[in-house]
């Protein structure tokens, strides 16, 4: 099998991994060596689905011993299998990097033979790049669940970012869809990486020359829509991951039906809107100071498909609004629907020099589409008088094309009966599976 075929098979097998960011690391090489990392990350290309191509995202092999229901590479699938050698990956990375095609390497793998054997091979590849080739580009390495802690530690010394995929947002779903995986094998290495990062940071504060350990932090990924878990469960779990393991990111990937399996839901399209809402909530938690319980609770366990989480939060808290642009503190302004971090920074900066009115806001490129219902300038609303929640929701509801159409005088009208979508009553789980939560991450 030549290199082109291998690349095709193993890039195709890796494409459902969402993470492709190359930010967070400031690795620099000495003059005469190749590579540097950019703090904010660099996107090198964008594929036809609109996702960025920043890293060379490949599997070492797609030859797997596991049989997880949702996975393209499970052993029961009849797919061509391939495996890269160490030299092939190293040369491919260096060649692509020299041509500025990529920002670095994203290396993952199916589990071949055993978790330890696989992890050992992955670490060897990255060590070869770093030590033999003196490569200082960005490297994102997947931790294999169940690998030895010593291997995870070796990986952390050479990689910029480590990630271990959660894949499913509850233990129930995990045992149902991926019976060979165990939750301890996912959570324990996460905890180990977190502890070592903290330890290294403390040491580096005392001795600057301490080598780095996972400078860009760890991330994880969850599949949305492959199991019956609701948004509340997913959001709570990600909040716990941010808090407990100081994750840099939790990625959500809308479930793409790649396998035929009775345990999986039958869907025509990946649930992209749900994924989008989860990301919006994720941003609200990371950059806007929101808590998970403010966005969803037991009575509202799922996001509204029509409105973003911030609008819904604002509608439920009329006592906080309207906010006066010239007086509200920065953290409060961040909670106004339609105002983002950049906008609020501009407002806070400008109001040091003058009292602002709506013309000033428009001049600063502040979009008033949503914000107009929640803010006042110098005590006055913009256009609206006293916005009530039902009015706001009616105004902000996404426009849908009318189902009615003008009849033609000359043509026979095609009579269409509206189709009501009936969701199949799916039994996702066997009934008697008790959730045995441990102390490590009670949400999971």
């Amino acid at each position, binding site marked *: 099998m030549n*290199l*082109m075929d291998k*690349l*095709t098979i193993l*890039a*195709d097998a*890796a*494409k*459902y991994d969402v993470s492709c960011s190359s930010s967070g690391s400031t690795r*620099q*090489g000495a*003059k*005469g*060596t*190749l*590579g*540097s990392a*950019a703090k*904010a990350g*660099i*996107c*090198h*290309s*964008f*594929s*036809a*689905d*609109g*996702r*960025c*191509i*920043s890293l*060379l*995202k490949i599997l070492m092999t797609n030859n797997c011993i596991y049989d997880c229901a949702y996975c393209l590479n499970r052993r029961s699938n009849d797919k061509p299998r391939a495996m890269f050698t160490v030299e092939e990956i190293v040369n*491919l990375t260096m*060649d*692509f990097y*020299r*041509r*500025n*095609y990529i*920002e670095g390497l994203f290396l993952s793998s199916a589990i071949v033979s055993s978790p330890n054997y696989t992890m050992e091979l992955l670490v060897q590849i990255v060590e070869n790049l770093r030590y033999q080739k003196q490569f200082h580009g960005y490297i994102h390495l997947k931790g294999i669940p169940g690998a030895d802690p010593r291997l995870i530690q070796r990986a952390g010394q050479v990689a910029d970012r480590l990630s271990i995929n959660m894949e499913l947002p509850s233990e129930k779903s995990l045992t149902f869809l991926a019976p060979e995986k165990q939750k301890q094998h996912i959570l324990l290495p996460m905890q180990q990486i977190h502890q070592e990062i903290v330890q290294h940071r403390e040491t580096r504060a005392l001795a600057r020359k301490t080598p780095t350990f996972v400078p860009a932090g760890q991330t994880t990924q969850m599949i949305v829509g492959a199991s019956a878990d609701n948004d509340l469960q997913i959001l709570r779990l990600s909040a716990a991951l941010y808090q407990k393991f100081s994750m840099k990111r939790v990625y959500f990937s*809308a479930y*793409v039906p790649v396998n035929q399996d009775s345990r999986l839901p039958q869907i025509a*399209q*990946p649930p*992209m809107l749900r994924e989008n809402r989860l990301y919006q909530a994720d941003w609200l938690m990371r950059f806007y100071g929101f808590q998970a319980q403010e966005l969803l609770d037991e009575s509202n366990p799922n996001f509204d498909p029509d409105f973003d989480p911030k609008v819904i939060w604002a509608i439920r808290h009329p006592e906080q609004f309207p906010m006066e642009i010239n007086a509200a503190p920065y953290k409060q302004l961040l909670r106004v629907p339609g105002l983002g971090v950049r906008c609020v920074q*501009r*407002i806070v*900066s*400008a109001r*040091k*020099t*003058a009292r*602002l009115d709506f013309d*000033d*806001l428009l*001049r*600063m490129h502040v979009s008033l589409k949503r914000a107009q219902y929640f803010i006042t300038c110098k005590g006055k609303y913009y256009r609206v008088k006293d916005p009530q929640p039902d009015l706001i929701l009616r105004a902000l509801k996404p426009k849908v094309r009318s189902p009615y159409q003008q009849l033609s005088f000359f043509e026979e009208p095609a009579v269409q009966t509206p189709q009501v979508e009936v969701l199949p009553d799916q039994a996702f789980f066997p009934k008697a599976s008790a959730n045995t939560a441990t102390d490590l991450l009670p949400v999971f």
Partner: protein
Amino acid sequence: MRTYLYDGSFDGLLTAYFYAYKDKDIYDICRQTHYQPDLLSKPHDISTEEDKAQRIVTSVQQTLSSQTMRNLYLLYLSELPRCDFLGLQYLRLCYQQGAAVNLAKHHPIIRQVDDTCRKVKLELDHMKGFLRFQEIEPLVFYACFAPDHNQLPLLQPHLERRFSDQKMIVFDEKRQYALVYNLHHSIMIPFTQEDAQHLLQNCHDNCIELFRRYFHTITISQRSNAKLQAGYMPHRYRKYMPETQPEDKQPL
């Protein structure tokens, strides 16, 4: 009314600012090469004086801020219509009001300056990613691009830091000059299409095919979204990116 003409260098522009600052009868500042005579104004040539330029740099950095100086430089690199005159208005405003006027994001001049600088910085981020090298000899690489704004001076430190062990020629097709890096330091030289063709004679880079295949394989077809892709990767840059071009097309 006068139009100040400078030689196209940043020092030349600063010299023009030096003389134009107190001129109430100024109409515009522009490069000699870009000048179009008009009915209203008379051309006024400025010869570059390094000491005058240096006086402006020192004064701006000491009495205003180095961020102001950086903004002036980005305005100069933007090469947008009347950006040089905007720079003069900005300079006058800053000296009248103090550097704190940069906080007034609603001020018309500050807003224009911020918008222009943001355009340049955004394109710089794009170019750091979208620039494509091809190997013309072992460890000698050539890239060609045509950014909207003059990006090579801003890209230079990034490229030197990142590819410090490979020789490079980066050709700005729109402005007909190139950055040449010889492992020790880099210089800017005039460069033409013919030079580029001469360099690219019978060289073939196998990695292009590999990357093109990778680019098409990594797409999830169920999530196809050409509009989103076009928003992130504008069509005008794609001419220079081999992965987006059909297979039989030779890279530029």
